[in-house]
């Protein structure tokens, strides 16, 4: 994945979105800021791709047809965790690398199985030092046949 520059105005825009006017964010990023590394991912699925169909609405309630697969379908965002070796600072150039983490299963409350999975993203700075690790936990549901929603 290409690098993610930690830019002052982006950090300030992000902090505003959180309703946080802390002047410290002129120098460091809020703890959840690396979520915005999505902006640096050329293939991020939850952003409309120029010239391609988008599953949100335009003339119709979704731009997708029955053969298209909603990128978020069937997966819920369960948890997010951040582990910091040091604060993320404005001026950092972070390079993310992603790998799958643990998987586990639980019974769902309404029957069926819940399949949890981790996606681990490590952000390293220009010197190659690990700065922050983001761990996303997603869950896919699978219902047993005959169980009603």
């Amino acid at each position, binding site marked *: 994945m290409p690098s993610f520059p930690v830019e002052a105005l*982006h950090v300030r*825009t*992000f902090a*505003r*979105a*959180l*309703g*946080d006017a*802390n002047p*410290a*964010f002129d*120098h*460091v990023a*809020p*703890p*959840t800021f690396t*979520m*915005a590394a*999505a*902006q640096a*991912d050329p293939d*991020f699925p*939850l*952003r*409309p791709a120029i010239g391609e169909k988008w*599953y*949100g*609405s335009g003339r119709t*309630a*979704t731009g997708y047809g029955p053969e298209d697969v909603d990128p*978020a379908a069937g997966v819920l*965002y*369960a*948890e*997010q*965790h*951040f*582990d*910091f070796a040091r*604060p993320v600072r404005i001026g950092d150039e972070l390079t993310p690398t992603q790998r799958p983490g643990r998987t586990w299963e639980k019974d769902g409350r309404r029957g069926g199985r819940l399949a949890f999975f981790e996606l681990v993203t490590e952000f390293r700075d220009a010197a190659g030092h690990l700065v922050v690790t983001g*761990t996303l*936990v997603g869950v896919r549901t699978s219902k047993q046949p005959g169980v009603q929603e």
Partner: protein
Amino acid sequence: MRFPEVGTVLEQVLIEDLTRTQIVQYAGASGDFNPLHTDATYATQVAGFPGVFAHGMLTMGMTGRLLTDAFGAEAVHHFGGRFLAQVWPGDTLTARAEIVSVADAVATLDVTTTNQDGVEVFRGRGVVAVS
């Protein structure tokens, strides 16, 4: 915080009457344009929700303010948690954190964010540097 002690409770209102515009701000800043959060036509007609709702990460991001305001913007070693319930436009969110341990200049806090009905929307943990 000068003297963090086990049992200390911090509480802060994160947002009163969350606006759809703030959800749009978060989408734009974070790059997450999932139409569940940004597109009422999709959210209602395709996904079957009453309307758009906030990104879980918007709630978590706002919750982080409790830690950075209390301990400093550079003090967070760990912050994580679980999304428990959806957050809707008009919601008022309050974050509460309790120090559960202090050792070696580091405090661990249980963090929870609730809405105006007392429903827990986020529950997690913070680990922060303390002097």
